């Protein structure tokens, strides 16, 4: 599900688990990222603010 909501940063491995691109999320993708994190049924995704 998250890979569909944020294909720019999330791909799926051969078992269907998300592989996250570590590139920071630009403002244009922020809403999509938030939705992807919220949609996770196991709360496995966290949207973190980079301190730099």
């Amino acid at each position: 599900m998250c890979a569909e909501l944020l294909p720019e940063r999330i791909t799926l491995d051969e078992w269907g688990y998300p592989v996250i691109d570590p590139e920071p999320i630009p403002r244009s993708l922020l809403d999509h990222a938030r939705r992807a994190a919220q949609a996770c049924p196991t709360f496995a995704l966290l949207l973190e603010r980079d301190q730099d």
Partner: protein
Amino acid sequence: MSGSPSLTSESPTLMDETPAGREPAGLRPAPTPTLPRLLAGLESHEAMSLDDHLAIHGDIALHRGRGRAREGEHLIEEIEHSGLRGHGGGGFPVARKLRAVAGARGRPIVVVNAAEGEPASQKDRTLLQTLPHLVIDGGLLCANALGAREVIICVCESELSSQETVARAIDERRRMPGAGRLAELTLATAPSGYVAGQESALVNHLNGGPAKPTFTPPMPFQQGVRRRPTLVNNAETLAHVALIARHGAHWFRELGTEAQPGSALITISGALAHPGVYEIEYGAPLNSLIAAGGGLTSGARAVLLGGYAGAWLGAEYLDELILSEEHLGPHGATLGAGIVLLLSEAACPVAETARVARWLAEEGAGQCGPCVNGLDALALTVEAIAAGGVNAARCNQRISRLGGLVYGRGACAHPDGAVRFITSAARTFAAEFADHAEHGPCDACNRPSELPLPAGAGRGGSTRIPGARP
């Protein structure tokens, strides 16, 4: 274990006054900066009594009330200057952890982690069975520094000897004058699984949950056992604290290296005359440890450093290896929880790797898809190589790819360690892997295993590879 002359110790350096009710400690010569330190005074495999412990190491007063905060900060500073890092495999700076717990809200609790899940490690059970009071001292000192009122000592549920010696040591402490003013000591058991000794897994277990790691906040130092800030330290780490409190950071740093000061307990086993737990100083050559262990019993094919979360290096490295993270890191290896295993030339490294890889896959907590699937896929690949009739290059690629896919994608470091173990095996034993891929099992495949696993793990006492010649 290395036999040793007793070391005498100087009187407590951190305390302004002698403990009430005890004779003032007389001046004793300062301890010499040599080994053994933790293992000093050990003359048998019996647990050292409290009296003997105090005679060898001297007493440490643990004050409550007015002096405690100053004393606590002094201890944390001393530990900081010593450079002491955790001995459970993580190597986290101990002072930093203490400060994190001290800074959290609520009354802290101290957990002594002796849930030694690594099959090739014996150091923690050795400490609990022979030197429980060193470990208890460390726990009480940290409790005192943090204002904690409880110290929970966690032992594997299958380790009955350790439970017995710890229970008796706790009893000796309770009968001492002034015991009521100190933190309460309790013994708890933990499941014997490989990941059960991981810090958050242990805390979850103590809270009545499963012994499975978590990585979502809060961390144990903020909210752990009963939602209290929890200090979880390896048993050996606390034994070092007990000596640093007595002799100071400067003394501690007289052994070891600048980057990795102090001494450490190493479990060395395999093709060695006298396998066991030895105390080394960091930076010692592997050869000196092998010599202390009576030398190799047969040719060594390879050395496994760091246990099943560690890495293999070929025998050609034996003469040059130094026991420090600084030296081993560039080799892609680590000491982990202080484990060295020498695989004999007679063993089949492919069969051994396959067996342990399968066990590692089974020992995961089952929480994280990449670990559950990835470690199984890795084990299947190594098993396929062992059974033969596969393309070696393709299998190696698969191992590489799976390794990259699994590493860092679990809630704990278990998959990372398994990946390191398996990929370093594929690299170190490239010729044997290629040979098995093409020709299938070798004569050595069904030999009794040299890599230890808990009783009942795998397929009995030796590796059963389908199609192996009897």
